[in-house]
């Protein structure tokens, strides 16, 4: 992807469309961060494409002064895959929601990740179906009372980070709508990753699911619960770093007082070839109600599907001339004359 900074500003990535989310929706913060970020990292409006599905979050592309495709529900990763294969020169972003990307679109997401297609996937997780006015979603905790679950939901929720890691994703991260600095940092890393980058963003739906992430976003709570993953640094957290993550004998991870941890504290290595440790970290918080890791869980270099496909085409080209006449005349031919 383009690296040189372009001298562009946030304005260059802001479309003239009126933004139509509810006042106070977490989507605004994400939008604004992405607009500034693209300018900072030197992206260009004309080589940037945002592909989305359907949902409040999926309105995102309309507000970017880039190319955009507001596709159909759940299919953005598929549309983006075709685009990425056809056009190595573009930065292709996918914007999806917890319903769009994990319910109807879960399979396309899984396959885009395992193929390692060169896409940046931002999943706006608000643990609700916003656009359809408030049904529970695959990330809603058990017992959620919403329009379609008056007696509480009974589906065990998905952990998007665990799922992505189980699907062989090469880049997996998590951030928070309103935490501009952290979100920028994570998205910058995602942008720099060649291949499929998956970023779960906790996004607050003020209307149908307000404060769903209070445990990691609240003024007091976040200091206590955010486990900020930084490559190469020991994983400690809490106001004074009083808690630490250590490996246990059974291959799982545990949170212990830093004092007791000693040298068992895990030093975060996002580049480990296998997703084992990243997965273990994702299980520290099956759902964001207590200590929850945010940041880049995993970031490894791996062959990129669309690059490999284009290589095969080039190899074939080098090997065989593209002679249409010869193709048509391949196999047994015979001549008829009068």
């Amino acid at each position, binding site marked *: 992807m383009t690296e040189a900074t372009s001298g562009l500003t946030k304005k260059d990535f802001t479309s003239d469309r009126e933004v139509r989310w509810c006042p106070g929706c977490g989507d605004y913060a994400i939008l604004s961060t992405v607009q500034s970020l693209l300018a900072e990292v030197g992206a260009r409006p004309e080589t940037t494409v945002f592909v989305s599905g359907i949902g409040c979050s999926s309105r995102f592309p309309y507000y970017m002064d880039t190319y955009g495709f507001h596709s159909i529900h759940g299919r953005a990763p598929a549309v983006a895959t075709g685009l990425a294969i*056809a056009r190595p020169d573009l930065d292709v972003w996918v914007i999806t929601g917890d319903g769009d990307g994990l319910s109807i679109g879960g399979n396309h997401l899984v396959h885009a990740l395992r193929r390692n297609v060169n896409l940046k996937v931002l999943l706006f997780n608000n643990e609700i179906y916003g656009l359809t006015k408030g049904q529970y979603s695959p990330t809603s905790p058990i017992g959620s009372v919403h329009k379609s679950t008056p007696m509480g939901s009974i589906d065990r929720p998905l952990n998007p980070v665990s799922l992505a890691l189980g699907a062989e994703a090469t880049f997996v991260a998590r951030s928070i709508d309103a935490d501009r600095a952290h979100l920028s940092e994570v998205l910058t890393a995602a942008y720099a990753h060649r291949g499929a980058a998956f970023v779960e963003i906790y996004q607050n739906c003020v209307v149908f699911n307000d404060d769903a992430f209070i445990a990691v976003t609240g003024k007091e709570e976040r200091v206590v619960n955010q486990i900020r993953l930084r490559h190469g640094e020991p994983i400690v957290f809490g106001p004074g770093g009083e808690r630490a993550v250590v490996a246990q004998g059974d291959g799982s991870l545990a949170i212990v007082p830093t004092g007791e941890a000693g040298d068992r504290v895990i030093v975060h290595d996002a580049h480990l070839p296998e997703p084992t440790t990243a997965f273990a970290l994702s299980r520290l918080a099956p759902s964001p109600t207590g200590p929850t890791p945010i940041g880049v869980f995993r970031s490894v270099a791996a062959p990129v599907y669309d690059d490999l496909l284009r290589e095969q085409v080039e190899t074939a080209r080098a090997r065989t001339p593209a002679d249409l006449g010869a193709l*048509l005349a391949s196999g047994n031919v015979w001549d008829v004359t009068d």
Partner: protein
Amino acid sequence: MSGTTVERTRVTLHNAVVRFAGDSGDGMQLTGDRFTAESALAGNDLATLPDYPAEIRAPAGTLAGVSSFQLHFSDQDVHTPGDQPDVLVAMNPAALKKHLKDLKPGGTLIVNSDAFTDRNLQKAGYEGNPLEGDVLTDLQVHEVPLTSLTLRALEEPIASGGIGKKDAERSKNMFALGLVSWMFSRSIDATEAWLRAKFGARQALADANVAALKAGWYYGETTEAFVFTYEVPAARLAPGRYRNITGNQAIAYGLVAASVRAGLPLFYGSYPITPASDILHELAKLKHFGVATFQAEDEIAAIGSTIGAAFGGALAVTASSGPGIALKTEAMGLAMMTELPVVIIDVQRGGPSTGLPTKTEQSDLFQAVLGRNGEAPIPVIAASSPGDAFDAALEAARIALTYRTPVVLLSDGYLANSAEPWRLPDVDDLPDLADAFTFATEPNGPDGTFLPYLRDPETLARPWALPGTPGLQHRIGGLEKEPDTGSISYDGDNHHAMTVLRHERLARIGRALPPLEVDDPSGSADVLVVGWGSTEGPLRAACTELRERGRAVARVHLRHLAPLHPDLDDLVRRYRVVVCPENNMGQLSMLLRARTLVDVQPYNRVSGQPFSSAELVAAIESFAGSTA
């Protein structure tokens, strides 16, 4: 037995129909393919009909396991794979049981007598042994111990361990091919060369198969069982260079040709399904033409990726069969709303639901023309023969690129798998699709703005502006739009106007077509036969026969199903009787009746097989009544 050769009378025929039938494991498809190649090289016109079980491998020796291949070759134009075979080769009792009823009275039957064991007879559901009873009277029956003869021919290599007994036995199909080749005075040199190429390093196998092939040939020459040999002279085909081609091959080649002539890279996103998979297999081999093939996780992802590739500027194509197309319909609506050029190929098979996966049918016409939510007019065209599928693919690309619209191309299981001689087109004569479109490069609106839905006044096509083009950033999607800007609009009257406009865009595709060609040699016909798709061969044959019988019939075969050709309204009104035979329950008939209010007579059969011309002759006559 060798040594002496017997004198034979060589009978010259205009055409012959040969069917090879045996167990799925007997290699009948390959045998048929080779005999087809030999016939082609002999200059015959021909048509083939492969028929194999839906199971990968049904139990050996059972009826369900029978696989067959029929070839119709002639010194005249061939329009169908033939109704009743003149020669039936049955490799086992099940094959005999299944196919005997079709054999022409007095026809030639060659059976592998070695295979008529009690076990096999019982598996085939025979009480007694048909070779003994009088079941086969008034047929020319040749009981040939194909297996043992083959083994005998390969005694040496088997003894010397050069080849295993199993492999040796497997080459009995080549023995049969050799024998039939001899019967029809065919040279087996090409097949020998082909076998050597196929087995390459595996020398012993190559030798064994060639030996079996020759043994079969010599067997015919030397035994006295065969008193006649036959010859079908070369057909008077239009001069040119020919090859055999199946519909799936022709579609693959047609798409590559379209990409070359349009100067666009071909993107093919697909999910395997019978009988469409071979298009994917063909194109995957053609990467040197810049073809990108993507095996998606499902049909929805396949068309999704195709829409994305079209947005990126590729000639984007997806294909499936009925069940897979059903899954694509939502996305087809998106392609229609975003007005991107996408070709969607439906290789129809027996339906509904999973239906009859390996059988042919024309029953997806409604789905293609009307099967979407909302008012979603999309052009639909159909291929009418294996070779024609090449032109149909080019036409689908032309419409898609010219009008920026998804286009449905209908093929079917029969076209997909059957082969016919195809005259190679001159590459430079192919339509130049580069004129069909241009990529937008400049703003087209007031003060440097870009209007992604500002239309070409004639075609109503919107600009094709590729990501990467500075200054043309825009956003598209499936919500209703206002004109020019393409901005979302919830205005009711605008929605009505846009809906009307989308229908008008479809209509203009029809108005721009060349006049409809009607096949009416006498010019005096009062009966019109309307068809579409793979029924053209049988319909053409039927009409020819009717004319020979003195019944003047006119025939029109539709390439375009949506929009229907504007000439149709007047045309159908000009005839006393209009008959519309289809391999469905009357889908085109209904579209025609609604459009013209003419009492179009449907004739329908969905039996997994193409029509026989005999059946159509009878049907058309019954509708036409006594000769006027």
